[in-house]
């Protein structure tokens, strides 16, 4: 019963949040608009929280299971708040052949984040993305909109250090969620 009450509270709270209200109002009566609503939440918050999904399920009359099928099918959506520095390692064909898998390994080692997840302190989020459109610089890494090209594993430590320093001084990220993974 306690669970039932807490879940009702979470849904009630989600229903009062301005971005949720705006997204629902905009899309509610249009068929097949689940993805658009989820996009708006993702763009506003960097992820789609569970309480918002629970509320959307009721309000849009879409089963929660269907919402999670969409949220997990497209890599664009995140289910948890990502870290402040979002590291996107390109694993498109050119970058892959030029050695991006070794860069990924190095980032895992240096940050402690697994691919697709964030560090416990929410400082770093590590993800692999498809072609970012600058194959001439392969292998390429992008952190919060800043692009690093022609990298070797030896360069990674420096990049991680740079972003650790920036957030130690509480410098806001240039762009919160710059790169969508294959969506």
């Amino acid at each position, binding site marked *: 019963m306690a*669970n*039932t009450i807490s*879940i*009702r509270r979470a849904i009630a709270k989600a229903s009062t949040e301005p971005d949720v209200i705006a997204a629902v109002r905009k899309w509610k009566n249009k068929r097949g608009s689940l993805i658009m609503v989820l996009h708006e939440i993702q763009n506003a918050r960097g992820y789609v929280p*569970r309480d918002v*999904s*629970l509320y959307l399920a009721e309000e849009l009359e879409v*089963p*929660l*299971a*269907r*919402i*999670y*099928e969409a949220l*997990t*099918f497209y890599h664009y959506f995140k*289910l948890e708040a990502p870290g402040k520095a979002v590291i996107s390692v390109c694993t498109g064909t050119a970058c892959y052949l030029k050695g991006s898998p070794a860069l990924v390994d190095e980032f895992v080692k240096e940050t402690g984040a697994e691919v697709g997840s964030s560090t416990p302190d929410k400082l770093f989020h590590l993800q692999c993305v498809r072609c970012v459109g600058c194959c001439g610089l392969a292998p390429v890494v992008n952190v919060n909109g800043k692009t690093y090209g022609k990298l070797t594993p030896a360069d990674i430590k420096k990049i991680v250090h740079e972003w650790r320093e920036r957030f130690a001084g509480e410098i806001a990220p240039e762009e919160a969620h710059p790169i969508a993974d294959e969506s």
Partner: protein
Amino acid sequence: MINAKINGIDIQVEPGTSILQAAHKAQVKIPTLCYHPDLPPTAACGICVVKVKNAPNMMRACTTPITEGMEITTQDAEIVQIRRSVLEMILSNHPNECLNCLRNGECELQSLAEDFGIFRTRLPKIITNVKSDASTKSIVLDPKKCIRCGRCTVVCQEKQNVWALSMKYRGLHSVVSPAGDIELADSPCVRCGQCSAHCPVGAIYEYNQTEEVWKALMDPEMHCIVQIAPAVRVTVGESFGFAPGQNLTGKLYAALRRMGFKKVFDTNFGADVTIMEEASEFVDRFCNSNGPIPLITTCCPAWVDFMEKFESDMIDHFSSCKSPQAIVGALTKSYYAEKMGVPAEKIFMVSIMPCTAKKFEIVRAKEMFASGHQDIDVSITTRELARMLMQAGIEFPQLPEEEADSPLGQYTGAGTIFGETGGVMEAALRTAGYLLTDENSEDLEFDDLHTLDGVKEMVVNVAGNDIKICVAHGLKNVEDVIDRVRAAKVAGEDPPWHFIEVMACPGGCVGGGGQFWGVTDDIRKERSKGLTQDDRNAEIRRSHENPDVQKLYKDFIGKPLSDKAHKLFHTHYVPRSQYKR
């Protein structure tokens, strides 16, 4: 009609027929894995590929409709080679745990691997390491063994409209799971078990409690008693080579005694008691306006769970009467215990059910402890029973026919049809007619109620009263019925029906989630016929004429709906949240 050729044989089929269906008609077997006749094809596995003349590549027989003049080849060396490769790829994501798997010997993937002679592993194994989920204590989800055919999600979403299961992520990472990072018990799952009955492999199966039963049977202190559900008697034979629908009641009683049960009772007796209470409840509401109309039946625990989660505004319409299983449980540990002088705490009550949700029903509310103890200790499915019979080394086909034990074993034809769609309604009408008129109507059979149509409606005239009834099975169909009742209520109109029977599983309990794998509508019909025949052959066919039921009311309960009846035979319902997390 469309003309085509399969392997050089001329065929004629209706437009829209798939190559697979047409091949079946032409007695050509195309191997399948993800396909199930109950469900729309998903083309997930690729085993059923065939060649179509002038087509650029091979086509999947399950989803390709036949077109005029099509020339199809279903077997040649190249097709066999492709099918073998598909199987090898599926097996490369499937653990080699056949010996430790509950589906060992009953697995569709295993038997295809055998047919195609996959004796070695050429590809590296990539196994998804997702832990199994037994949280419902009714069904176990083991995604590690899943071949991603999608049958379970389609049946859960499209047929049952429960949406507990979904296919999360994609490709190699796709996994069958409830929505989010939660366990099944925290999801809307109603434990109907249709996912487990449709799974081709050991990825979803019943929560196995056979060991608990063996342990109780080994305990000399325990007085072990068993009851068997209506639908079990016409299905258990399927694992011993009997045809579906063969009624094996007598042999089953004998087998259970040989396993060590001290008393063998029959859930059908409980069904007769359910009818006494439910028919009285109906007459009370219909004639005395003592409660809202329509009255909706509640013998089906998956339906009860569904209603509490999805239709809780209908609680007032629910019969408060317990299911036959629960009634036999409560009576065993009260009436029988008192009569025989056996302490209730020494009784170990096992129920054998066609159903995974019955495992939850026995603890779902405080009324399931009406005797002062947990009325039923363990509920096992037909599949678990069959395994126990195999383990016991009982030569089931050769057993003599025996009788059930008194006082909770004798049943009428009305009790036995509880296991098929329409049966509860038919049984209730026989007794309601008597309660309304004090006379038995000769109108006993309502054949139209036994068909596999999802929703069946009828108007029955009893003593000048037109009683509008409705029978629905398969939860998607049930929801449509409930929506109509709700719409009438909102519009202030008369209810569309007076009395509604609901069973969650297609076909009713004969198609239950705990029954044998591989059920189709043809098999459901045969099983159903077995129960109908058991009734048509019975000497006594009205619940209120069961002599042991009459004795029970005379000696112990008093009248239907009396205080004592309420204490032992009735329960209550509460709205429940679909998601707990």
